[in-house]
């Protein structure tokens, strides 16, 4: 089972939620649950960060998340796994979460592997962009990674 969403509070009036994640991945057959939460941190490249605005190509992000999930299931030969991925869109202030990845699997090793695989692939493949805001009132789009073309 898989859930993926881009959450833009301006449109949905809700934020990404650990409670929703916990509810979604709950499974009495699963012996391991992993929750990864990416937060806005105070310092990046020696600059005092106050928040980040995320832009996203929603449709392509969801398609990419689904593809990465399917690859992960295949790669780690998982018969049963529940995965929840939500990413924030719009402004997220310091200390708040920008992404939640929750995974439940039969055993801990596969839960750790799948969770790690998902975040590492999302970082380099999902069309999401960050504009950082700093204490000195300045802001900048982060450089990022080019998407590979065939």
């Amino acid at each position, binding site marked *: 089972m898989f859930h993926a969403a881009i959450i833009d509070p301006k449109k949905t009036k809700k934020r990404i939620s650990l409670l929703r994640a916990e509810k979604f991945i709950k499974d009495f057959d699963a012996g391991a649950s992993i929750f990864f939460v990416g937060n806005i941190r105070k310092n990046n490249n020696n600059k005092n960060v106050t928040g980040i605005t995320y832009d996203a190509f929603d449709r392509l*992000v969801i398609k990419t998340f689904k593809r990465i999930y399917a690859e992960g299931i295949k790669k780690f030969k998982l018969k049963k796994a529940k995965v929840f991925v939500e990413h924030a869109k719009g402004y997220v202030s310091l200390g708040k979460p920008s992404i939640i990845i929750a995974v439940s699997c039969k055993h801990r090793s596969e839960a750790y592997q799948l969770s790690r695989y998902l975040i590492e692939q999302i*970082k380099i493949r*999902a069309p*999401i*962009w960050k504009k950082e805001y700093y204490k000195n009132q300045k802001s900048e789009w982060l450089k*990022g*990674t*080019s998407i590979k073309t065939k």
Partner: protein
Amino acid sequence: MKIKIRLFGNCKDIFRTQVLQINFDKNTKVKNIRNKLIEIIEEKYSGNKAYKDLIKKSAFCSERDEIVNDAYTLNKEKTISIIPPIGGG
């Protein structure tokens, strides 16, 4: 034919819009669209190197949500998205 170019991330700030509409010849290729955007930067920003590099490093995405290369031809499609280097999470 008129092509809509959807913009994301830094490109929205550079071109100060979410969608550009530009006329191209029929069967234009992604390469032509990339070159046109670089041309606009040449005119608007006196060839700002960082902006031009951003366009050069960007990918493009078809209406069918597939990443396409410079040789891709837009036949019937009227919209294409430019995907600057990404960095979510």
